[in-house]
């Protein structure tokens, strides 16, 4: 009877992941991260994703500050920030975030400020969507651990 909770949660997790892959939000690099998690490093995915969130939010904040400034002209700096975002997004399998960052980088290479502002909005939107999905995933996994814990008391 207790096993049902675990199975249902696992099904929810699988469904969420399948949906994220189908939408192109995540790609096979995310699977690679999951492969790197084991008993010796049981929180690896959670840890890397959180490091990614911290770093990305700093970069996104800086990008917004730079672009909101009407006197702004340092497109090279924008490019450097975006290189970081493109790289780290690709390393964790955040395919859609990576792609919209690449698009924003192209706009910055053309020194197109309105284009950059629009592009930044898209990046922020995709980033927050990813973050919400990851939080949902981690919550489900946490619940499943707890449900499994009840089934196998220590």
């Amino acid at each position, binding site marked *: 009877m207790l096993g049902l909770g675990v199975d249902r949660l696992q099904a929810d997790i699988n469904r969420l992941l399948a949906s994220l892959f189908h939408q192109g939000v995540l790609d096979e*690099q995310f699977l690679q*991260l999951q492969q*790197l998690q084991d008993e010796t490093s049981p929180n690896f995915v959670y840890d*890397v994703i959180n*490091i990614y969130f911290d770093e990305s939010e700093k970069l996104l904040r800086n990008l917004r500050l730079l672009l909101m400034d009407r006197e702004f002209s340092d497109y090279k700096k924008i490019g450097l920030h975006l290189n970081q975002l*493109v790289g*780290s997004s*690709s*390393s964790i*399998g955040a395919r859609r975030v990576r792609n919209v960052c690449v698009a924003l980088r192209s706009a910055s290479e053309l020194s197109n400020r309105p284009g950059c502002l629009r592009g930044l909005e898209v990046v922020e939107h995709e980033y927050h969507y990813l973050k919400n999905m990851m939080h949902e995933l981690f919550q489900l996994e946490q619940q499943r651990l707890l449900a499994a814990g009840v089934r196998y008391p220590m």
Partner: protein
Amino acid sequence: MAVGEVMRMEIPAGGDLTVTTPELHVLAVDDSIVDRKVIERLLRISSCKVTTVESGTRALQYLGLDGGKGASNLKVNLIVTDYSMPGLTGYDLLKKIKESSAFREVPVVIMSSENILPRIEECLKEGAEEFLLKPVKLADVKRIKQLILKNEAEECKTLSHSNKRKLQEDCDTSSSSSSSHDDSSVKDTPSSKRMKSESENLSSLF
């Protein structure tokens, strides 16, 4: 075992002789904290000892190639570095390593998220072992590890053959009967540190 003693290897019937390979020590260089975390895990899960640094400058400091004093008795089997880094790029770091006498034999692998052919050619020409496209995968790391181990084993074999020949000459000049068996005391000659560690691993089987 003393130098010159003959080491007899008792190979069990069935013939399986597993030798544990000594752990490789890898220096990983990347300015991205996310990528450092990932590459470190990729290497650790592949049974490598890992040191990560966040820049080419820090890497040179660690290796003692910046004029200062690096870690003493440093043994690095492989250096993996990102290409695009602020300050010293991976290419600059590669050049400095290949120019040094202490580390020019250490294989250097370059990683980059950009598939730029002239960049790849430039790195390989400068002596990079391989050029990996990011994101780096477990299969990439496993392949590189095999390559490094194979290179080191081949170096041992070359040394082993030249030692065997020398030993044969020494035996021939002496009046006692020669012990120039193929699997004789060659492995125990202390002329190479790497060979010594390999023989230590072998002797732990008995």
